[in-house]
């Protein structure tokens, strides 16, 4: 155990975590040059394309130290987006140390700070690294001061590195041995292992990644998951290199995987504790939480006949993404579909994209909403995950909406713009702290509903990208909500309904109508778009009838080409949903919320 080091990397998006990880893997010859694709740890297609890490992964390396000994390193990669902060916290809990990676020209960002606090809470040893020092824009002195302010280390503790050129990689590798403590557990104690991640493999079922705190695990053991109470046989255990390497036995301190034949991710919960069924540990490892979805939206097949296929696909996605929840619902406009819960908007987009890529399911996603608490006059408590469930105003006593504490780090010159944005979003400034003269941290009290949709994009645009953002849920508070309905040619489209704060209903209604006008293709007849609260119309737009869709010439040589063109046009229409008489493109439901600047 003395020769094991478990650590993670804390970094803001784009500060170079994946690149640096690649260098470490290369230098320890965990991956040969030949197998090296960039960003070896990001293996979902979407991750590679978006350049972000969605699911965390782990990998084992062997490092020959100058003291002559070979050490086992377990690098636990963590997701880099607020939507996935619970997974980050579990990964951190599996480590004794963290590499704090800060881009030498960008400096400390909100994501860095929130994850750093998590790491400090878990008593991790922090190795500060100033990355990308090869860049001309690197501001080593200034950024070093920021780091010193932040964690109170000495200047000499900061390693200057570049994942690109390889500067500092050797220093990092030896600092891991020298500074990060070896794991402390006891192999003789009853087994206690923390599940920090899980993965679904269509051949092998669910693979759980764990860190053993105490005890040992052997191939074939009957193991129990403490929080779910379920018992399984450890059919295969092993360590994680670029591929899984089966072992017969793993001891306290180490990181590994277990395959039990479980077919559904739901059964394995990140944060749960694995123990021996015969000789169980006294208590579960602390910090387990059921992940709670923050954003809800309906997902519907474009063609109603595909409902069962969609259920199938969602079930398969849930196998490897336990944070996705769903239940059947019906919409008057869209027929049968599912109300799904997501960790955030990015998570929602990822699910939609994966449905399309991995299952060839083109879906319609309805206007998303957060989860509200409603109390009726008869004092019933209802959880409202869809606008349709909100009781009639006459029956309703009150509604509560979720609030968050938002943390924004930016340059002082953008404070004004950010304040304006947050006020408009019904926010309240809680605190303003200068981290350095050039960097200020603002915290706001904000309704969650106001930040899930276009907040982040707008924040980025008003600060030209010089703001980072993180949030944590706080509580539920009474709110004056109304249900805003959208009508197309007089028919209410439930899939476009939303719950909004009364003070914002008018402007929101106008914006939605305007946006729909841009999003709906013209049709053979005029389309009236209206926003209504109850019977009262608060906004309207019209789309004039389609005038021209014709080919002037169609003679012998044009027929084949023309037919093919129209066949393509037909396929485009298939991606639309007929609501009443109106064709609505699949994308419109989500796009409608990207309201632009005064939303």
């Amino acid at each position: 155990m003395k020769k094991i080091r478990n650590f993670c990397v804390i970094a803001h998006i784009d500060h170079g975590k994946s690149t640096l990880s690649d260098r470490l893997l290369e230098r320890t010859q965990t991956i040969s040059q030949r197998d090296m694709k960039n960003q070896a740890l990001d293996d979902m297609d979407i991750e590679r394309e978006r350049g972000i890490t969605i699911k965390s992964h782990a990998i084992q390396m062997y490092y020959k130290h100058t003291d002559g000994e070979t050490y086992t390193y377990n690098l636990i990669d963590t997701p880099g987006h607020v939507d996935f902060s619970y997974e980050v916290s579990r990964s951190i809990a599996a480590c004794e140390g963290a590499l704090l990676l800060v881009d030498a020209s960008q400096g400390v960002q909100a994501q860095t700070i929130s994850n750093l606090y998590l790491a400090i809470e878990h008593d991790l040893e922090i190795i500060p690294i100033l990355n990308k020092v090869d860049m001309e824009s690197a501001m080593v002195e200034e950024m070093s001061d920021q780091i010193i302010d932040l964690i109170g280390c000495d200047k000499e503790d900061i390693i200057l590195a570049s994942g690109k050129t390889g500067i500092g990689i050797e220093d990092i590798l030896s600092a891991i041995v020298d500074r990060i403590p070896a794991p402390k557990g006891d192999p003789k104690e009853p087994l206690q292992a923390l599940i920090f991640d899980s993965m679904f493999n269509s051949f092998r079922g669910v693979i759980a990644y764990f860190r053993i705190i105490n005890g040992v695990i052997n191939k074939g053991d009957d193991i129990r998951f403490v929080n779910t109470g379920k018992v399984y046989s450890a059919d295969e255990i092993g360590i994680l290199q670029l591929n899984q390497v089966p072992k017969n036995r793993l001891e306290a301190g180490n990181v590994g995987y277990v395959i039990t034949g479980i077919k559904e991710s739901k059964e394995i919960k990140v944060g749960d504790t694995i123990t021996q069924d015969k000789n169980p540990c006294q208590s579960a490892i602390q910090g387990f939480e059921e992940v709670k979805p923050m954003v809800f939206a309906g997902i519907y097949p474009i063609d109603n006949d595909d409902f069962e296929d969609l259920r199938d696909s969602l079930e398969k996605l849930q196998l490897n993404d336990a944070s996705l929840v769903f239940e059947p619902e019906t919409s008057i406009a869209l027929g049968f579909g599912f109300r799904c819960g997501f960790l955030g908007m990015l998570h929602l987009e990822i699910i939609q994209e994966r449905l399309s890529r991995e299952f060839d399911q083109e879906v319609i996603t309805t206007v998303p909403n957060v989860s509200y608490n409603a109390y009726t006059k008869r004092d019933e408590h209802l959880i409202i995950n869809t606008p349709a469930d909100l009781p009639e105003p006459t029956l309703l006593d009150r509604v509560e909406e979720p609030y968050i504490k938002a943390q924004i780090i930016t340059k002082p010159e953008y404070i004004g713009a950010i304040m304006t944005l947050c006020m408009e979003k019904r926010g309240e400034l809680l605190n303003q702290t200068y981290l350095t003269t050039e960097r200020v941290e603002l915290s706001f009290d904000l309704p969650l509903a106001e930040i899930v949709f276009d907040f982040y994009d707008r924040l980025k645009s008003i600060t030209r990208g010089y703001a980072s953002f993180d949030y944590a849920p706080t509580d539920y508070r009474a709110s004056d909500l109304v249900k805003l309905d959208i009508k197309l040619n007089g028919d209410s489209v439930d899939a476009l309904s939303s719950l909004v704060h009364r003070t914002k209903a008018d402007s929101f209604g106008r914006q939605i109508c305007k946006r729909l006008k841009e999003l709906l293709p013209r049709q053979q007849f005029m389309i009236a778009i209206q926003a209504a609260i109850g019977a009262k119309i608060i906004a309207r737009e019209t789309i004039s009838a389609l005038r021209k869709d014709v080919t002037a010439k169609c003679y012998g040589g044009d027929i084949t080409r023309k037919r093919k063109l129209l066949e393509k046009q037909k396929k485009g229409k298939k991606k639309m949903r007929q609501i009443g008489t109106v064709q609505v493109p699949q994308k419109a439901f989500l796009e409608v919320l990207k309201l632009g600047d005064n939303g």
Partner: protein
Amino acid sequence: MAGIYIHVPFCRQACHYCSFHFSTSLRLKEEMMSAMLIEMQQVENKPSMIDTIYFGGGTPSILSIEEIKLLMDQIYRHYEVSGDVEVTLEANPEDLSEDYVKGLRDLGVNRLSIGIQSFLEDDLQYMNRAHSAEQSLQAIEYALSGGIRDVSLDLMFGLIGSDQSAWRASLEQIIDLSPTHISCYNLTVEEQTAFAHWREKGQLQEVDENIQYEQYLMTHELLSSAGYDHYEISNYAKPGHRSRHNQSYWNSQPYIGIGPSAHSFNGERRSWNVANNAKYLKQIKEGQERESELLSPSDRYNEYIMLGLRTAKGIAKSQIDEFPKKMRESFDAVSARLLGQGVLKSSGDTIYLSPEQWYISDAISAELFWDAD
């Protein structure tokens, strides 16, 4: 009954809107003539009777009377040609002289289709046409007085130079000239044309769609009341003077295409020559196969819908009954909805679009199309 189409792939200069296949270099003209003569002879499974002959392009009037005679003679040598064959030749105004028209008439050309496009000098320049407005008027006079049975004049609307009153004046002028046939094309910005290029760069001035639609309606009204029958989106004819050749395309009758880019159809399979002069010459020289596609039932169904909705003839329900059940059912469902919305009209066995609705016929076709996958 079948038609022959001969594609003459040369033009004097490239019109800015044109996406047809042509070359502005006449270098390969001799070779092209020989290749087309060979191709006429080579055609397999020649139809039993040729009913229409059509010289299109490009600019067929770039050929001399002698050259056209060679082509005509070759057709008569290798095909059975009907006694009342319709022989059309597309001509540009700058090519027409009294003698040339007479020469054509003597060769049996009984239908002359002249690319006038506009009576306005500005429009002609904007389109990069090779003739002046005056040349057009001269050419029309030669044609109308030259003993050719049918004269068709092409005009274009939706041009930036013609406002509503200018377009009305053009229509009145053409009605005065009283050709037997008029084609009025709405300017379409086709891919790979100068106009498309300018549009991409945001440099193309365009006429508002509503104005174009009004011009379309104005055309329909004025020409109809002058006794022209609006029988296809862009085509108007005095009674008995429709283009037989073009109608055969819309009725899915067989045709043989000769020359680069020309398409043939034998009732089941459509085939076409490469749209490249040098490659075409090589294809003929080496006896290479043309490209082709066998029309599946859904291809034929979609073409029937698409072509039917462009013409006064419309779609015959009895014809739809010849297609597979799934297509019939889909037709019934979608057409019922469109009839209900008043977009489609029906009368007896026929389902059709009224001329006002032809202007969105592509959108309607796409709705009625069968999606094979």
